[in-house]
């Protein structure tokens, strides 16, 4: 790949990073906190591409008589077009039920249980509900109407789970936290559908078949489909 082609690839990769960083597309792949670095590196790549083209042009003017310096450029650079195509043309969705079913629940004991607002229904994250249900025996949430958003995953036996992938850095380290659903569960559930589930705490628990981790149940009264949230991952562990 010669320098003009390299500049084009760098420019496109930089522009793709800028686009992903500005449009919120990046939230499908990495944590929210990476946005400034992402934008900065995209800008540097675009700038490098422009500087390369500029120096190439100047050199061509300056050394018209001099014949080429056969400097072999690395062919491995061609591989950089793969993430470019994947990001621009395919833009794969955030990790969903496929990874969630294959990976064990990553529920950890929370450091503390924050005081909850008085609202009804009480909005709660999947991770927060699971933590309170398993490690606090539902003390702070028993008897309240809860509203929880996550996507649907069905294990091999067809058991429905409400899942949120928790993320620390990028999708490669994302791990699911699962809630099993009982009560008025919709009869037909499509994996990867995002649901806002209203329900209440129940003491029933089960074990994740993959890693034997604890999975609390939620007694569902109502479930309605919602669009994918702006940030599909749970990032509470980053704070």
């Amino acid at each position: 790949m010669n320098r003009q082609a390299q500049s084009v690839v760098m420019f496109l990769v930089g522009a793709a990073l800028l686009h992903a960083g500005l449009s919120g597309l990046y939230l499908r792949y990495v944590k929210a906190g990476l946005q400034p670095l992402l934008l900065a590196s995209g800008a540097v790549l675009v700038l490098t591409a422009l500087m390369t083209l500029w120096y190439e042009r100047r050199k061509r003017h300056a050394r018209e008589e001099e014949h080429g310096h056969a400097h072999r450029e690395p062919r491995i650079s061609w591989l950089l077009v793969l993430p470019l195509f994947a990001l621009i043309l395919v833009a794969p969705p955030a990790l969903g039920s496929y990874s969630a079913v294959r990976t064990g629940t990553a529920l950890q004991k929370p450091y503390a249980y924050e005081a909850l607002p008085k609202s009804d229904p009480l909005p709660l994250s999947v991770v927060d509900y699971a933590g309170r249900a398993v490690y606090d025996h539902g003390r702070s949430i028993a008897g309240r109407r809860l509203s929880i958003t996550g996507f649907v995953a069905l294990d091999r036996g067809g058991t429905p789970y409400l899942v949120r992938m928790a993320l620390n850095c990028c999708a490669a380290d994302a791990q699911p936290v699962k809630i099993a659903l009982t009560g008025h569960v919709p009869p037909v559930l499509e994996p990867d559908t995002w649901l806002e589930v209203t329900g209440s705490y129940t003491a029933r628990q089960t074990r994740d078949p993959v890693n034997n981790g604890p999975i609390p149940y939620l007694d569902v009264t109502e479930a309605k489909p919602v669009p994918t949230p702006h940030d599909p991952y749970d990032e509470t562990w980053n704070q």
Partner: protein
Amino acid sequence: MAITRPAPPGPARTDKRSGPDAPAGGPGPERDGWHLTSPVALTVLLLVVVVAQGPIRGALSAPVMQSWTTVFVAVVVQALPFLVLGVLLSAAIAVFVPPSFFARALPSRPALAVPVAGVAGAVLPGCECASVPVAGALVRRGVTPAAAIAFLLSAPAINPIVLTATAVAFPRDPGMVLARFAASLLVACAMGWLWQRLGRTDWLRPPAHAFHEGGSKGEAFWGSVRHDVMHAGGFLVVGAMAAATLKAVAPASWLRTAAGNPFVAVLALAVLAVLLSICSEADAFVAASLTQFSPTAKLVFLVVGPMIDLKLFAMQTGTFGRRFALRFAPATFVLAVLGAVLTGAVLL
């Protein structure tokens, strides 16, 4: 592997005269057709992929492929900012810092320079993608390879950002932070000294850069940035493909069986660290989630990962050459496992 490139650059070589940017008046470098044709090949490739995007999307819509592509893109997007940071730093070192600076800053005896360089790794913020190009620049600036290796291995593991992340991931276990720091520094210095005794300079790829092509410092700086981004970036893609394959295809349940036996557990997490290629800022959280494993096995995961993994191996091959990487990677792996087990036995 997953995305096939439909237009190999080969055929474009034949039509080098008819390329759209073969200027009539200004002769470019013509000795090698490859140089003239790669923009044409790239254009053809872009066109073909844009035209064929429907079938490509269809092929990638199966859950396995979707998950593969997501992890692949995620690893690349996550690593690129740190790679760019490392490349900028490495270009600045290569162009603006005179070699005499390192001669003064580091002790002249290599045996002493190794631990100093190892501790200096603490100042490079970020993960392992940044340290490879910086270590490459240090070698080119005349720093003894043994010291550069100590820096390369210690920087991703002992900088404040990574140690803070480790403390957050193990809130009830401050010993893990200390053990990670101590074991990583120990292994980094051991590798530096080992290189000093056994290493041979001809294993290292001679500096590929032609920095001073008669141009200005600015030209040298941007030339270095361009070369390193394209080069290390290509190898990063190789590593990301390997990591995505493991994450999407390998079953997670075999880990449960491995956790039972302490010896197998250590080995399993060491191999897992190599295969997963997780950024060193995030690996502590993954280690913390492997609850079935002993603290020592988790420490092995934290020490091995930032020093050697698939992505790093690919990038080291690119920066230092294959002869170096093939010897360096197994030695690092063995020493890192031993160092972590020893430290774990003392501190955990």
